[in-house]
């Protein structure tokens, strides 16, 4: 039985990661052949560095990912606090469902509808080219928000409601109490939310495709490259993105286990 289950896991990992592994291996191929590995080289990575289209796209992607993650983290945290403060059960769950819809919604629908909105509003202001950095940023914030809210909300729920009272009792204004007491206790939720937002923004293709105009991000540039012919520099780029996301996910998981451990400790301590 044990051997069987191990085999099962091995097969799953193989199917999941074989394509990525092949891509990584071929990104180090010295020729552009997709069939034969002719020798190890960093040529494709070196090529990337001198490729200005690629570098601009990378810069766009990072700039959008960082700023959308930051903005959606701030907005999402504020939203989570606000939603929990709603006294009426029905109203609060209604607001929660509304914020969750962008997450469930098909990317293509979100993308097309955002594009229409941006063009419509742009026309109202007499702009010919309304799509660009601003619109893709707004779009990314939109789809990041629910993820941030979802990762902050449970931390906020776990926080003892008496903590704010205690802080105010000791002389804090409500505003100060939030920053001194609530923010530190939900910090792991905020950081995981920010990492989620960053990774989601980093590899988004569909929504960016409809909203970015000429401000092309990396996934879009890669897609355009593959329309002509797939070259190993695409593999190199994809490898970099894969590794970046992989590292972030490991970080995310480490934070999660750390906060779970803390919660468990707290339970023991309370007894």
């Amino acid at each position, binding site marked *: 039985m044990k051997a069987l289950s191990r085999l099962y896991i091995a097969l799953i990992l193989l199917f999941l990661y074989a394509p990525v592994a092949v891509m990584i291996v071929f990104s180090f191929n010295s020729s552009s052949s997709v069939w034969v590995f002719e020798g190890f080289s960093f040529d494709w990575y070196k090529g990337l560095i001198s490729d200005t289209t690629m570098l601009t796209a990378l810069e766009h992607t990072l700039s959008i990912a960082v700023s959308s993650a930051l903005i959606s983290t701030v907005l999402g945290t504020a939203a989570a606090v606000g939603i929990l403060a709603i006294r009426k059960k029905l109203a609060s769950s209604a607001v929660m469902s509304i914020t969750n819809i962008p997450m469930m919604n098909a990317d293509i629908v979100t993308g097309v509808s955002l594009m229409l909105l941006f063009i419509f509003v742009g026309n109202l202001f007499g702009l010919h080219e309304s799509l660009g950095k601003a619109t893709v940023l707004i779009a990314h914030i939109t789809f990041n928000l629910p993820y941030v809210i979802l990762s902050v909300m449970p931390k906020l729920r776990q926080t*003892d409601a008496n903590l704010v*009272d205690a802080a105010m*009792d*000791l*002389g804090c*204004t409500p505003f100060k109490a939030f920053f001194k*007491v609530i923010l530190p206790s939900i910090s792991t939720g905020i950081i995981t939310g920010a990492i989620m937002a960053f990774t989601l923004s980093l590899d988004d293709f569909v929504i960016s495709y409809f909203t970015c105009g000429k401000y092309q991000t990396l996934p879009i540039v890669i897609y355009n490259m593959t329309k002509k012919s797939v070259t190993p520099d695409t593999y190199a780029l994809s490898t970099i993105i894969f590794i970046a996301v992989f590292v972030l996910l490991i970080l995310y998981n480490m934070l999660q286990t750390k906060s779970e451990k803390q919660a468990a400790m707290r339970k023991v*301590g309370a007894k």
Partner: protein
Amino acid sequence: MNKENIVQLKNISVAFDEQVILDNLSLDIKDKEFITFLGPSGCGKTTTLRLIAGFLEPDEGDVLFEGKKINGVPAYKRQVNTIFQRYALFPHLNVYENVAFGLRIKKLPENEIKQKVEEMLKLVNLSGLERRHIDTLSGGQQQRVAIARAIANHPKVLLLDEPLAALDLKLRKDMQKELKKIQQQLGITFVFVTHDQEEALTMSDRVVVMDGGKIQQVGTPQDIYNEPQNAFVADFIGESNIVDGKMLKDFYVEFSGAKFDCLDKGFDKNELVDVVVRPEDVDIVPVDKGMLTGVVTSVSFLGVHYEIIVDIGGFKWMIQTTDEHFVDDKVGLYIEPDAIHIMKKSEYSGLYGDYSSYSEEIDHLSDIIEEE
């Protein structure tokens, strides 16, 4: 303005969603006293505490601090500090920083904070644990940190919301003594909330018994126990047999079909009253010497004494005695005049004081339900 009263509550009413929590409540709290709000859950005791702390505003009535009205003054501007039921320690800070929290808000110089924190930790016997994380402390230690954190700010009034409820019995007893000691050492007013009558009696200078959003009685522990004002107080504090009686004249009362000398006066002739007799004040004597006679229906051994239930003409009395008796024994009861306490009839008359449905288990169950 009376300088002796540090906190005054005047005609306070509070309602949540149409439900009345406090009903026209007035109370004066004296400077430097240990006063306890005692009552079952939902009686309004915690609400009263939150009014004084400033977490809640009354719908009607005034809260006065040192003679000045403080309605609308936010919690962070009041000279009171609170110890919360589940401590509400800051989990991201260590022991030192928790205690220093209020001092840092006040922006005191670092050396003064250090000195103050060390003094407080010494007072609550936690010296040496400054760097420990809150999560690694036991319940009793967390309790001590909560005390140190609250008194580090030198409040004029310390509010304690069932602070010992989460501790086990032994630790609770120790902390009761220690809190009393700290109160005397600091010489400040303690306002303590509990549903544990024994805790209230052992610690307090004065006890405020509450039920249904109203104060039932205010007095010293001795007053409350010996001279309860109505059936609720008599039943809530200790065990009581409460029977219907008739005041024949001053110092003479009739109940359970017999007539007794007593020490109470000032009632109308033949006024109907509630008569309280504590279980420990009844002597069991041979049937022919008894003022009342009855049949033993149950016996339980509690260590210090036996608790026996005696049926007297259909009404079940609880009696505590060190002598052993057996079920179905016929016994006589002898009651001294000073064991009888007469109360005016109240809305609580007839609700308490009969042990016909009494059982140990039910008592335990209601204890668990009382936990909020």
